[in-house]
């Protein structure tokens, strides 16, 4: 049998490697502010999955609900409708004890540094270490190395008053990281930092994600740090407009570029095409398309192999074998004729499928190269 899903190809649900457990799982999450007549919906049916070790960058205009979603994930607001699982615990209806326990496993980095003026950089960071009961000797080593790493080695025992804005922000970042949180929630962590220290901070994030399996969700408008994102989530008006796994999208675009009809498309358009593809799975022996049927999908093989069989009226003959990165099903869409071959999976396969209408739309209405160049130049101002 073969199964058609509604999971977008760019969601990263299939990435060709082993899947990590989900750190954050948001399902059908609605959120409202105010009461009675003033009640206003801030989040609409949000779905989001973030896996262990992923770095997610959330963007969107202000008021789009990304901060609300972040505070909900961070247990700082109470979930009202829908399901919100963080670190394996359902937050909708969670009790105080669970929330306090979860908060200790998270690291918060706020836009404002919120350091106690009365405490030194060291003591401020230590407030987080003490809370989780870190051994003082270990904590001391960790605080010192973190602050040194963030370029504050010579200012460990300074009070915030004698630190610059960027230095204070870095102390706040150290405070958010010192207790080795499993989930880091950061709001514009690099906004107050220069290029170099901003880079140092995101490199630190990457190391934490890679080496300690730390999951990181960053709300930011800082496009200098987009390169660290494993996934970019875009929110508009309380809805997640796009949720794209960066690496997987790059893989799809690479494949699509090899398709002659798409060869002239710009990366931007390719990404849009990738966005419209759905995951489609098949087991060995499954017939993906049958000769003579009406064509409705264009397929890209993400993994596995398929046999191409043509029935010339007397017998079915294997004419070719297609593998990862190759595609099929385009002819029927272009010519509007029935399928001219049968495709049978001979291994467990994953395809990314593009609907007929979308396929045509890409061909017909996608911006020409020159048009897109104009757009790019216009946006430069």
């Amino acid at each position, binding site marked *: 049998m073969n199964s058609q899903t509604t999971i977008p190809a760019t969601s990263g649900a299939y990435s060709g490697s082993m899947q990590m457990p989900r750190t954050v799982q948001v399902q059908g999450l609605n959120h409202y502010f105010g009461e009675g007549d003033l009640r206003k919906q801030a989040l609409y049916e949000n779905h989001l999955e973030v896996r262990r070790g992923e770095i997610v960058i959330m963007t969107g205009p202000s008021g789009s609900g990304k*901060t609300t979603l*972040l*505070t909900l994930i*961070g247990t*700082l*607001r109470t979930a009202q409708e829908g399901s919100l699982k963080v670190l394996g615990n359902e937050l909708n209806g969670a009790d105080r004890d669970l929330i*306090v*326990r979860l*908060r*200790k496993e998270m690291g*918060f980095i*706020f*836009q*404002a540094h*919120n*350091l*106690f*003026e*009365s*405490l030194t950089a060291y*003591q401020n960071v*230590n*407030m*987080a270490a*003490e*809370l*989780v009961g870190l051994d*003082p000797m270990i904590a*001391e080593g960790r605080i010192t190395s973190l602050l040194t790493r963030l370029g504050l080695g010579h200012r460990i025992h300074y009070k915030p008053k004698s630190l610059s804005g960027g230095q204070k922000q870095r102390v706040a970042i150290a405070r958010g990281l010192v207790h080795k949180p499993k989930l880091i929630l950061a*709001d514009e962590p690099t906004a107050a930092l220069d290029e170099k220290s901003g880079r140092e901070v995101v490199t630190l994030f990457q190391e934490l994600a890679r080496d300690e399996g730390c999951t990181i969700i960053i*709300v930011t408008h800082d496009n200098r740090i987009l390169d660290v994102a494993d996934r970019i989530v875009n929110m508009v008006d309380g809805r997640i407009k796009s949720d794209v796994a960066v690496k997987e999208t790059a893989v799809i675009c690479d494949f699509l570029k090899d398709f002659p009809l798409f060869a002239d498309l710009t990366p931007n358009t390719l990404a849009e095409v990738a966005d419209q593809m759905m995951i489609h799975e098949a087991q060995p022996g499954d017939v993906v398309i049958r000769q003579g049927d009406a064509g409705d999908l264009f397929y890209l093989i993400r993994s596995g192999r398929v046999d191409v069989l043509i029935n010339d009226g007397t017998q079915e003959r294997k004419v070719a074998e297609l593998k990862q990165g190759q595609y099929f099903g385009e002819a029927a869409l272009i010519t509007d004729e029935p399928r001219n071959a049968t495709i049978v999976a001979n291994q467990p396969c994953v395809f990314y499928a593009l609907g007929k209408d979308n396929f045509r739309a890409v061909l017909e209405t996608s911006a020409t190269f020159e048009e897109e160049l104009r757009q790019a130049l216009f946006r430069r101002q």
Partner: protein
Amino acid sequence: MLAKTPLAWKNLTHDVRRLVVAICGIAFAVLLMFTQVGFQNALFDSQVKLIDDLQGDLFLISKAKFTLAAEKRFPMARLNQARSCPGVLGVYPIYTELTTSVVRRIEKGMGNLGYPLRTIGFFLDDPVFHSEEINRQLPRLRVQGTALLDRKSKQTKFPFPLDDDAALEREYLELAGKKLTLVGTFDLGTDFAHDGNLIMSAENFADYYPHRVRFGDPLSVIDIGVVKLLPDADPAEVRDFMEQTLDKDVYVMTREQFRTEEIRFWDDSTPIGTIFLAGKIIGFIVGMVICYQVIYSDIADHMAEFATLKAMGYTTRYFILLILTEAVLLAFVGFVPGTAVSTGLYSWLSARTGLLMVMTLNGLLFVLVATVAMCVASGMLAVRKLLAADPANLF
């Protein structure tokens, strides 16, 4: 580095100017309370100064005598019964008169209005007073119509030359309508009921106040019975025995009981206790307002930081403990300078007013507890603000 970060102390001492203001404010409240306690103690002490000046281990008074100033007496027979109790070395009667004990000063043949003071009479051979000064002058009192005058008697009512014994003796004055000669001075002090004191022999006392008993010996009714015990007798035991043995119209009290009961009367049954209580409450409230202000503004200035701590997982318990610690620290840092200033004020006031203002352990403990209570109370009022800190507003 092993101890937890002392956030309460750090926050308190971070802003030196605010800390100094806080200390001044709380020290002021402490000073207010100490002043009230000091005056109250001084006044209550002067109410019982006579008891303190008397020798003796147990005291007998009529059950009707609700205060030293009440002229209720008991018959001599009680004292005789007391003398026969085991453990008793001696019993000595003290006679006092107030309402009829009016002194008029005669000047140029004219008497002034006359003002009442307390006349205290006793048998000169009885060891009744501690004061060496009084005992030295006893021989002078053996002369008929003589008395010693309390130097602290109100000068406005009894304007006698106190420094010059010869001049004092030349003064013409009448006591209860009879001529009186002042042969010397002693030191006792005034109180709420008594503007001055005279001391004289029981024999002279009987002459001046023959009307104490309608028929018979004026010395047969006694105001205060002083009981002296053998050195190895237990006052409490003897007291209990006397209580059972003696007729039920007298109280038998130890020195401490006598003192306490007298103070209790002035404290409970007169407005004095209430007035001082009000003074203390005002000091307490002033301190509370100041302390609340200090803690509240500390919290208000650090809302974002406290909210961050909440987001990190710090619990309500931590914040309450934090503010509690801050309140207790404030109480102590304010109490120490407040006490120092109060001690100075006490000695200055003592020198100026003649009131006995002493820093007692009880007074110290009372004010310390009140100070801590006031800081903790205001801290708990202010902590509600902190608990309202919402980490969701931080993003």
